[in-house]
């Protein structure tokens, strides 16, 4: 952080402080935006207190963690302990992707000039969506990281159907997923090709369908729509420095995404403790049932697209290839954790429609592969 030295913090002067941290915002507006001065003045002494407080809290947490780790198992009943272990593992696996997603979202919203992103896009809506569905190639985040990124794109002027096209396509059409899927399956049974084409197709059809919606803003959740309106009204990006905007966005996105991530992970973990896996696995060799079973498995297990090929590989010997494709296409787009995360941005009604469309198309794709391959 570019915080001023201790000396300058003792010698008062809100202007000096603002200048130390801001690249342009504070300076430009200090004169006519009277909100800036009291803010700068009030922040200065508290600044270090909060810094110390924040570090102190984290150190306390880690200290508590080390102490409780040594006092031995608490004797939680097995299912409860496993619920916690499973949910924690979903959280620990997803957390880095969420952080990456938030970081890229901040990059797109704050640090990349607006016209860059919009200029490279074709004007024709189909062409635009086709290009947007390939964004994942240079923003390699899996699906949970894509939610903050898609939110960032909407606030950056993308239409809502376009944000969905991105959200659906990017986890599949991205270099990490392509590499891991290739490592796991090679070109066997057309699984890799079907996954990529299927993801592209579903994303574009979905974007096209939602672009027919008469009032796209009603697709958003109330809270997110509210935030977008606030952005428009305030003309964000002019009143605050980039550093402040960065931290602001981090606070806001984590506040919305973290509870959703935890709740999604808890539900995903809970279902795994309750539902026996063999119920699903016993359906493996029927062309239709295997596809449905794999989609249910993908929905329940909620793991990231970047790594799901390794998960499904051991099942490849017992399940038909079409069902594997359905798993690999459906899972990245819709699962328990994703629904919780997407609910932060889209309305429940939208999510029901989205799930229905994606489920039907993935099932169709799986059946085609089963009968053709």
């Amino acid at each position, binding site marked *: *952080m570019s*915080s001023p030295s201790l000396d300058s913090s003792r010698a008062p002067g809100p202007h000096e402080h603002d200048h130390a941290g801001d690249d342009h915002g504070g300076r430009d507006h200090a004169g006519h935006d009277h909100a800036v001065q009291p803010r700068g003045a009030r*922040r200065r002494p508290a*600044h*270090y207190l*909060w*810094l110390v*407080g*924040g*570090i102190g*809290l*984290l150190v306390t947490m*880690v200290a*508590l*963690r*080390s102490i*409780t*780790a040594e006092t031995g*198992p608490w004797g*939680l009943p*097995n299912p409860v302990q*496993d619920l*916690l*272990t*499973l949910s*924690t*593992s979903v*959280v*620990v696996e997803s*957390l*880095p*992707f*969420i*952080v990456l997603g938030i970081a890229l979202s901040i990059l797109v919203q704050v640090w990349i000039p607006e016209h860059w992103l919009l200029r490279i896009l074709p004007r024709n809506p189909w062409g635009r969506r086709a290009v947007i569905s390939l964004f994942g190639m240079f923003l390699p985040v899996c699906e949970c990281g894509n939610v903050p990124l898609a939110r960032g794109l909407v606030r950056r002027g993308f239409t809502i159907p376009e944000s969905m096209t991105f959200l659906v396509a990017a986890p599949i059409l991205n270099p990490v997923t392509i590499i891991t899927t290739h490592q796991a399956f090679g070109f066997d049974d057309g699984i890799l090709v079907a996954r990529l084409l299927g993801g592209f197709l579903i994303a574009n059809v979905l974007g096209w369908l939602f672009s027919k919606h008469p009032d796209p803003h009603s697709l958003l959740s109330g809270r997110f729509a509210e*935030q977008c309106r*606030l952005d428009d009204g305030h003309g964000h990006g002019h*009143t605050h420095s980039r550093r402040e905007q960065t931290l602001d966005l981090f*606070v*806001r996105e*984590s*506040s*919305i*995404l*973290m*509870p959703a991530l*935890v*709740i999604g992970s*808890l539900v995903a973990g809970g279902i*795994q*403790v309750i539902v026996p*896996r*063999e119920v699903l696995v016993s359906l493996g060799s029927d062309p239709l049932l295997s596809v449905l079973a794999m989609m249910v498995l993908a929905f329940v*297990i*909620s793991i990231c697209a970047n*790594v799901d090929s*390794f*998960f499904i*590989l*051991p099942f490849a010997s*017992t399940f038909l290839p079409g069902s594997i494709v359905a798993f690999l296409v459906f899972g990245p787009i819709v699962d328990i954790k994703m629904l919780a995360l997407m609910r932060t941005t889209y309305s429940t009604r939208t999510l029901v429609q989205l799930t229905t469309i994606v489920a039907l198309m993935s099932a169709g794709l799986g059946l085609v592969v089963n009968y053709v391959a």
Partner: protein
Amino acid sequence: MWRSVQRWRGVVIIGTMAAITLWLAVTGQLALYIHPRYNVFTVTMAVIAVVLAVASVAGRRDHDDEDAPPPRRSQRALGLTAAAVAGLFTLGMVLVPPASLSTATADQREMNATAGGDEASLAAASTADEASIARFTVREWAAILRQTSDLSFFADKPVTDLVGFVIADEDDPENVFYVSRFVVTCCAVDAQPLGVPVHLPDWAGTFEPDSWVSVSGEFASNPSSSSLQSVAVIPDTVDPVEQPREPYLF
């Protein structure tokens, strides 16, 4: 109160979780949750999260969404509930000691459903020398057992110090248990139990399910009449051991 919770819940949760993740990495316990190939990525992102979280708290200031209209009562209740659930879970991550998955999960996932079925491993096993057979883990034995029950194949291939946790065979819980390990391909969510059946009448008198043991012995025709496993280890020794630092096989 409402606004502070709403605003800061995420930073507190993400900061705490990232800090705990770093602690897990330092103490070598990240392997309880994810495959080691993701360690570097996970630790890097956790460091970024900690830095951003601390910076956000330090750079605290008034916010423009404070002039947003007050939320409806139902929304507020929902937001507080979500914060409470997420907060409790985070506290659980801080206070409940990390543990590996138990028999409760193994029971829900069919034993050996995904044991490697490739013939290469069987071929490799039939030509393996004594030293490498002695190093076989539950994974290799489970793959072999899935492909052959030919006793002559096992003739000169003893089981040496096979480590795993104890879980009862559903079909003959009194006389047969599995020495079992979870195999993890990505994270603990996808853990698949693999196990080698061991025939030891009244084993439950000596060992608890979930406890870790080391088994040595020979494969033979399974004497149990109700177990579906035709081949089992007839143990020479079964010794209790500590849970290994990496309880899963990767």
